[in-house]
């Protein structure tokens, strides 16, 4: 892309992001349901962790630690728009072909749109999740700075989720149905990312293996910040997220190039 094309495209990407934000506001019922879901999931797990801790399991962790951990990991999982569904629908309906002749690349436009939607979700879900965390977690965590850092890290973590969703959606060009890929990704995120249970309580070998995956950087990384701020660890997580986001962006760009060639060969 030339410098002139880039300067033309920047306002366009901002407009796509703004459109994505407007789309989120247009789906008020969905937003409300999502906020309710945050409350329900935090209520349920606050009770589960209370019961687990009463039996003396997960020694070294308090109920507040675990509830605040889930506040952060659920924020990541609930704040990214399901881009794979959009891409798959565009492929099936042929709308993708209708959008290709536009001067802005389809994949980048969709990513910008998702980023706008994600920003709205984060802005609305964060106060809700924090309130629920304080109520169901029976107070605020000892080190509030950790929560602040975790909230900062939620943004790049959600960006990584958006990139993953884009890659999953593009796989529909070859697989025709991206849902199975999404299910696998989601289950891996749950298990290797430590969505509900911190990797710190996993068997050592499994936690060590999981930490090599993007899932751990996406969920456990920001989540474990609530256990107490460790500057070195926060920097490490930020670095991991930066690395995985860059790798994700390169992978999506590569995949889009392949997908585009497939469309240009088959006609969509």
């Amino acid at each position: 892309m030339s410098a002139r094309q880039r300067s033309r495209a920047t306002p366009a990407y901002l407009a796509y992001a703004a459109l994505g934000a407007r789309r989120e506001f247009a789906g008020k019922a969905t937003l409300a349901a999502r906020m309710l879901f945050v409350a329900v999931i935090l209520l349920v797990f606050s009770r589960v962790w209370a019961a687990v801790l009463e039996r003396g399991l997960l020694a070294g962790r308090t109920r507040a630690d675990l509830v605040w951990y889930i506040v952060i990991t659920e924020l990541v999982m609930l704040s990214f728009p399901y881009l794979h569904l959009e891409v798959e629908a565009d492929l099936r309906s042929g709308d993708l072909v209708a959008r290709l002749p536009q001067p802005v690349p389809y994949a980048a436009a969709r990513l910008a749109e998702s980023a706008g939607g994600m920003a709205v979700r984060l802005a609305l879900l964060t106060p809700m999740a924090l309130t629920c965390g304080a109520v169901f977690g029976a107070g605020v965590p000892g080190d509030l700075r950790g929560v602040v850092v975790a909230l900062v890290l939620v943004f790049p973590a959600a960006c990584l989720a958006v990139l993953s969703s884009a890659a999953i959606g593009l796989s529909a060009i070859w697989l025709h149905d991206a849902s199975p890929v999404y299910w696998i990704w989601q289950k891996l995120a749950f298990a290797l990312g430590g969505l509900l249970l911190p990797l710190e309580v996993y068997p050592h070998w499994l936690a060590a293996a999981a930490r090599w995956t993007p899932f751990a950087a996406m969920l456990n990384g920001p989540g474990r910040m609530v256990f107490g701020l460790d500057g070195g660890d926060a920097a490490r997580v930020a670095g991991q997220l930066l690395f995985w986001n860059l790798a994700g962006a390169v992978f999506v760009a590569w995949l889009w190039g392949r997908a585009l060639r497939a469309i240009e060969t088959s006609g969509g």
Partner: protein
Amino acid sequence: MAAIEVKNLSREFRASVRHGGMGQAARRLFRPEYRVVRAVEDVSFVIEPGERVAFIGPNGAGKSTTIKVLCGVLHPSAGEVRVAGFVPWRERRALGYTIGTVFGQRSRLWYHLPANDTFDLLARVYSLDNAGYRRRRGELVEAFAIGDLVAKPVRQLSLGERMRCELVASLLHRPGILFLDEPTIGLDVVAKATLRELVHSRSERDGTTVLLTSHDTGDMERVCDRALVIHRGRLMLDQPVGSLRSGFIRRKVVTVVTAEERVDVDLPGVRVVGRAPQRTVLEVETDRTRIETVVQAILDATAVHDITVEDPPLEEIVQAIYERAERDASPGGSP
């Protein structure tokens, strides 16, 4: 410079062969078989700026394939194409600023948002300055009578209303060339007529080149001046819409209302195709008997209250073109 130049365009697809039972299917997993399908074969044409051209043909004729190549969405297997001076598949992004596209069964509008939001987005996508965009949007919104629609979510619009909004979206950046792929598909009679009139009038006003694909000969008749007929991937005909009738079918339909119960005309190439009391419909092969001769014979035979001479509907003409193409393509067909 021509708006669109197509020279010896061909496009082949590789389609997997599916036949046989389970055993064959299992074998194909390891040794897939393919056959080559020629969607477009050696098609050439030139469209000058401001022309309105219909690209018609039956299902699978190669219309959409050609349009996709012209928009840069599909690479050709062979041939040369220039649209507004650009090679579409190499310069799709630059080409995007100069063309507008409407794909009848596909949408560029955001389903849950008002069309206005998409228009605002497209203003940024096409780098329109604010004042110019507002002026252009106002002008198009008024011309397309969508003032009370643009603030409603697209999901609440009827298909006809949505298509008008789609057209406005495609015209916002003043494209020099407009590609319309089945723009009236699924529309009712009134919505079709409105859309055709709007496309025709905007094209005349802005000098926009239009290339329209359709199954509906009404689109061709009301919007276009020239028709390209494609069949089985090959261009069969390229001529003005007006001369399709006179040039292709030597047949006219004469309807006579008479004082007497019936009228009979005994001339070569004239046959009765409909009869009611005081009303007779005749079909005349004009290369066997001139139409003036038939009319004179009717006037000599009876007192005439009314008489109309019509061309057969355009659908029949196009059907005749397809049938001739089939005959020519079949072994032993006419040369």
